[in-house]
């Protein structure tokens, strides 16, 4: 008998990132982290490098984490979690080790330590919470910042109009190292989210979860639209939901049709300045990505039936 995948209705309910932390109202990051930790459970060790997460949840001596939490330096998430994992193994413990880094700590500053841990295939879970800039220090561009976005280091003026290069494909970088499991997640697709975290929890070896977490202050949006942004990102192709297991890529949610990227951009202050040409450039780049992702080699031939419904948690809202 095949066991039914975990859903938001059946997942553990005990909070591991408690109330009272100092994140902005409408922070996508704290939603993502709390839910990852709920599923991993109380027998977990968390490491977070310099990031919003560190500052809002664990400003000494107060901590919002109910599980043990450790902090060292910005660039070494991969190395520190590898070390904790080795130490616990020596003690014969089965504790889960999770490193939660932002996009700066993963795409740029933490890349070498991440690559090292991935190459050694250490038994750790690496979570990248991607809010597309260095938000903790007041919005500087990172390798994850999308084309055209305003940040303090890609300003908008007469000579330049926001970031001029495209977002780095971090999943390709990680998957290129033959890791045990890599997946992209979105807080707007709760059941897909839960299923992937549960899957990663059950595996051994290096596992990478990449979560898009909209940021209300850096993206200059209303806190209430955080959910809509996460949803629209997938529908417009700015974000995609898939997983890579044993080198095989499976799309876990395929949008019905591609929405124009403008629908996503117009909700955010960081894209307000964008010219028609720039939007077209971004749209063309997205269309190319979309075709690669959904129509060619990345689409699995045996996509399980009903998975799309599960991703949108359709079965949980029967009778609507």
């Amino acid at each position, binding site marked *: 008998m095949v066991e039914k995948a975990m859903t*938001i*209705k059946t997942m553990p*309910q005990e*909070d591991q*990132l*408690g*109330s*009272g*932390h*100092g*994140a*902005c*109202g*409408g*922070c*996508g*990051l*704290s*939603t993502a982290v*709390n*839910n990852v930790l709920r599923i991993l459970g109380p027998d977990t060790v968390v490491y977070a490098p310099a990031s919003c997460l560190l*500052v*809002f*949840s664990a*400003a*000494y*001596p*107060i*901590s*919002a*984490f*109910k*599980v*043990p*939490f450790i902090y060292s330096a910005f660039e070494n998430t991969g190395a520190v979690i590898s070390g904790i994992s080795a130490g616990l193994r020596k003690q014969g413990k089965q504790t889960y080790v999770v490193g939660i880094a932002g996009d700066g700590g993963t795409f740029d500053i933490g890349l070498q330590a991440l690559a090292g841990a991935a190459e050694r295939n250490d038994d750790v879970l690496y979570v990248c919470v991607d809010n597309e800039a260095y938000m903790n220090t007041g919005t500087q561009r990172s390798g994850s910042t999308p084309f055209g976005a305003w940040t303090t280091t890609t300003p908008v003026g007469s000579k330049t109009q926001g970031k001029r290069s495209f977002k780095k494909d971090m999943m390709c970088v990680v998957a290129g190292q033959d890791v045990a499991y890599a997946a992209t997640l979105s*807080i*707007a697709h*709760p059941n897909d989210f839960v299923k992937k975290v549960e899957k990663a929890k059950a595996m051994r070896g290096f596992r990478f979860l990449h979560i898009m977490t909209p940021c*209300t*202050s850096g993206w200059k949006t*209303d*806190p*209430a*639209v*955080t*959910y*809509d942004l996460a949803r629209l990102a997938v529908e417009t192709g700015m974000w995609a939901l898939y997983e890579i297991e044993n080198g095989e890529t499976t799309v876990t949610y395929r949008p019905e049709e591609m929405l124009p990227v403008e629908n996503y951009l117009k909700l955010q202050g960081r894209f307000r300045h964008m010219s028609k040409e720039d939007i077209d450039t971004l749209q063309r780049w997205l269309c190319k990505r979309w075709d690669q992702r959904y129509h060619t080699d990345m689409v699995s031939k045996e996509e399980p039936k009903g998975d799309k419904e599960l991703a949108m*948690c359709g079965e*949980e*809202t029967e*009778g*609507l």
Partner: protein
Amino acid sequence: MYEIRFHGRGGQGAVMAAQTIAEAAVYEGLEAIAFPFFGAERRGAPIMAFARIDDKKISLRTQVYQPDMVVVMEESLIEIEPVADGLKPGGCAVVNSKLSPNQIDLGVKARCATVDATSIALEMLKAPIVNTAILGAMARADDFVSIKAVKEAIASRFGEHLGEEAGRINAQAAQMAYEKVSIGESLAQRPITKRKMWLPTWQEMPPGVALYHEKRGEIEVGPGSSWQTRTGTWRTKTPRYLRDKCVRCARCWFICPDAAIKREADDHIDINYDYCKGCGMCASICPAKAIEMTKGAKL
């Protein structure tokens, strides 16, 4: 030395106000510094900013603990912050409020100036950004800088960031606030409760600064100790739960960034208003519109 402490909410422009008043003092030929409270507080959280003005070089870099003037950018902060803590005898308070000064309960009897900066900002700037109007009121409440210098500083600082026209309108908002200020004396009915803290010496620090969940000094520290911060005070909008409409899908519980939604045994929910920041994500994810956002910090 003249010291000022601003109380605002993250995103309201308290830091900008502190910088502008310092710039105004420089135009008057004085020395000045301005800096924000360095902490982890984010948008919506009660925050502080500071300014110091003197006729000689300022080398003091600590926060302002005994201000000559406290500036309260939003009336509701009086309920949740000890705003008048350490106010010097003879010092004054500037409060953004529709009320008259003798209705403002700061916890100490002090000279108090009130101005309805929110209405002025809405009228002049078409947005509830109160920092420039507050600056005008400050110039009237005490004579440490002139309104002329304040307007000049606003035109320069806001003009530089937002364009000349914005600088001019903001300076007008300051002038209007200057004219509309009412000055009186505050009430002293509420107790001023200081923040509880643990301030260890280096000898008291545990090895590797590692902490268990335990009580140290006046507070709980270590894993799970964040519950002591009631982030519900940040709220300006409040979710109302409509139990009849709820389809028990638990999506709001999943999306809540503050773990302020609890599930009952049958998956109806219970919102914990001690921690809810009022972001509205629960209302936007709800497929049955069983959560609606209402204005104000209370239902």
